[in-house]
């Protein structure tokens, strides 16, 4: 399968934070959700993918091309949405369109008009008067009006009400129908991903933990609950991390089958949510430091 985004052994450090040997790939034609806590490097990774930052070492390639030689060509094919307003506040959406339109070879005025209509966006109101939801719709309209093959979004659902979050996910779902587009978006609202993501990429403290197909996560990971007497030095090794209480323990495993073999009927095995996985992974990472 073709990779649209490929990061290989990327290194980038700032004060008190670094991406360590980050390698990840995003498959063409699918929606990949990019998850991780606050300040673990999601935005930095997205900036590296957009060439807003350059890695100290390692390579970034988009559509199989590198930024050094093909910067404009790559950016022609990307649509982007950021979580902050990146437009000129004092302009209206119509004026903003006039500025952005000539940048793209494949700009489609009809498509733009169509989105403006669906989203009920005012064309002649200043952008600074837009609400958070309208802002997001406006960004999305601009991002989708030039037939981008790759859509990159940084926290598109943060600060949006649940109704619009669903609408947004429906729109993204419709976009994916032709199989030519790829969506990569970061979020910390993991329930959004249940509806739409095909793949999940999880990073923690600048390190790539995993990229997996969504359904496989449910097959491999499990929340295990049982009595505290089941735990000893050997069995504890089987878990990503464990939360103990007076009543027993609750733990995350990355190998559901093995746990079922070891403990059999003695434990309760449940389906984990993405939040569970994030929580226990963070806990596990802290334990072994």
């Amino acid at each position: 399968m073709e990779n649209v985004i490929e990061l290989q052994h990327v290194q980038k450090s700032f004060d008190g934070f670094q991406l360590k040997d980050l390698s990840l790939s995003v498959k063409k034609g699918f929606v990949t959700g990019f998850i991780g806590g606050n300040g673990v490097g999601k935005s930095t990774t997205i900036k590296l993918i957009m060439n807003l930052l350059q890695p100290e070492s390692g390579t970034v390639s988009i559509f199989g091309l590198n930024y050094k030689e093909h910067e404009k060509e790559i950016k022609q094919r990307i649509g982007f949405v950021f979580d902050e307003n990146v437009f000129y506040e004092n302009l209206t959406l119509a004026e903003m369109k006039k500025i952005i339109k000539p940048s793209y070879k494949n700009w489609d005025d009809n498509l733009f008009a169509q989105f403006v209509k669906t989203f009920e966006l005012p064309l002649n109101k200043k952008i600074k008067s837009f609400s958070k939801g309208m802002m997001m719709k406006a960004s999305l309209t601009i991002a989708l009006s030039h037939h981008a093959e790759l859509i990159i979004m940084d926290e598109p659902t943060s600060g949006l009400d649940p109704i619009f979050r669903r609408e947004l996910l429906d729109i993204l779902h419709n976009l994916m129908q032709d199989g030519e587009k790829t969506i990569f978006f970061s979020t910390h609202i993991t329930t959004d991903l249940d509806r739409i993501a095909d793949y999940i990429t999880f990073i923690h403290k600048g390190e790539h933990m995993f990229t997996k197909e969504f359904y496989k996560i449910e097959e491999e990971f499990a929340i295990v609950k049982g009595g505290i007497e089941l735990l000893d030095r050997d069995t504890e090794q089987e878990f990503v991390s464990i939360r103990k209480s007076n009543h027993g323990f609750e733990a995350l495993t990355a190998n559901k089958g093995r746990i079922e073999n070891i403990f059999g009927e003695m434990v309760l095995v449940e389906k984990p949510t993405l939040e569970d996985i994030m929580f226990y992974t963070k806990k596990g990472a802290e334990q072994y430091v």
Partner: protein
Amino acid sequence: MFNLIRKDIMLQKTTLMTMLPLLILLLTLERSFIYIGLLFSMAIIMNAFASDEKSSINTLLNSLPYTRKEIVSSKYIGALFFVLTIVLTIFTGNLIINREITMWKELGLIICLVMIFISFMFPFSYKFKSQYLLTAVIVSFVIYLLIVNLFINNLNDKIRELVGILLTLQSSQLYLLIAFSVIALYVCSWLLSIRIYSKKVF
């Protein structure tokens, strides 16, 4: 890249629309249009510069299909466009209102002065942000005053004299030399700004 220049013109449209009539009005009252031309050009150019300084706008411009080289170059070419607009307005204004043809030397002087100022201000602003320019201007003004008071009492007269000499020079070779040096300075500043900007983190 010309889209970026067009964008700057679009953004400065209202400023231009208010400043150009004001400029013409001033021409009827005041004859020392070199200073006015310089002031107006700098105001519009730095205004255009400042409107793109927010980090969110830099995120936008760098995410659109432009290279950093193009983003910087658009400012340098745009600056020339703005100064030419001002100079052209002065020329036509003088022709219509004062019924006189402005000497090309005086217009050339405005262009040269603007280019010299820009050559210092753009790299400075790319490095530190233009809001510190005011501080820099005040500091240089204080230094200027100190020089005037302590060392060369008649610096102002000398500058006026120099301008007078420059405008009455007969040797076209010397003009060529000046023009050439200014262009060289401008190009160096341009390259320096590209260097500074390509290392920036937003």
